[in-house]
């Protein structure tokens, strides 16, 4: 990693995240979140995870921006004046700060970035490399790990994603019909 660039990029994403929460205009918030995703993809690329960066750029900045704008068609851009916004509750603030403190404390015990002696790289990889051919006889090792060793895990994941996709399609489908109906009757 290049620390000169890191310094700027991390400050930028914190500024963009706070700004997109504070702003009262939802469209502006979407624009700022698109910028946030671009910087996040840049940071992933800088850490060497090019595939994650590619996903973040295409899903975070492209598809989710468009989805949020589609969602904005069915709601209002601004907060109504007569709706009172809730004040920050003290208990929630204390709870959130305590959680943040615990997370910072735990993050200190994590292994350094790119450390070859990290526990994730020591035990299980060698066993996969040595034994997966003998045990499963599948030529592709990644497929073996995903579909054989972690079969139930992957099944659960794909089920969740499948259900989420179906629900999104159902919601967007009825919403689009309603919008079209409103639009036609207005003209």
């Amino acid at each position, binding site marked *: 990693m290049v620390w000169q660039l890191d310094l700027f*990029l991390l400050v*930028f994403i914190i500024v963009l995240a706070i700004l997109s929460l504070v702003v009262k205009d939802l469209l502006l918030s979407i624009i700022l979140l698109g910028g946030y995703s671009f910087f996040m993809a840049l940071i992933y690329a800088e850490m060497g995870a*090019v595939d994650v960066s590619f996903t973040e750029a295409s899903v975070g900045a492209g598809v989710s*921006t468009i989805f949020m704008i589609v969602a904005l068609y069915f709601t209002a851009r601004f907060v109504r004046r007569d709706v009172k916004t809730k004040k920050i509750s003290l208990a929630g603030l204390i709870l959130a700060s305590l959680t943040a403190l615990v997370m910072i404390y735990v993050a200190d015990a994590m292994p350094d970035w790119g450390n070859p002696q990290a526990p994730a790289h020591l035990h299980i990889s060698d066993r996969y490399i040595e034994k997966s051919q003998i045990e499963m006889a599948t030529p592709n090792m990644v497929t073996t790990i995903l579909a054989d060793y972690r079969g139930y895990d992957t099944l659960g994941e794909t089920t969740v994603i499948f259900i989420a996709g179906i629900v999104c399609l159902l919601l967007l489908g009825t919403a689009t019909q309603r919008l079209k109906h409103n639009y036609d009757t207005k003209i």
Partner: protein
Amino acid sequence: MIDFFIFVGVLLCVLITFIFYRVFAGPTLFDRLISMGVIGTKTLVLLLLIGFIYKRPDMFVDISLVYTLLNFIGVLAITKYLRRYKTDGY
């Protein structure tokens, strides 16, 4: 040459810091929109520079191509929204 690339990257970051002033203070929504577009082009060059700093530009070029297209598509979607729901600039 790598020092030169890092120098250029830091200069681009300083420029982005100045553009954030326009994102904060820009009076109309469109000011903020074009400011974010400019930040998009700057991050594109930064991404290519990071690829050259790591000496693996072939991996990073594909993401840059995606960046250019997504910048374009995002602006198209936002203007399509604004075309239906007219705003008076704010």
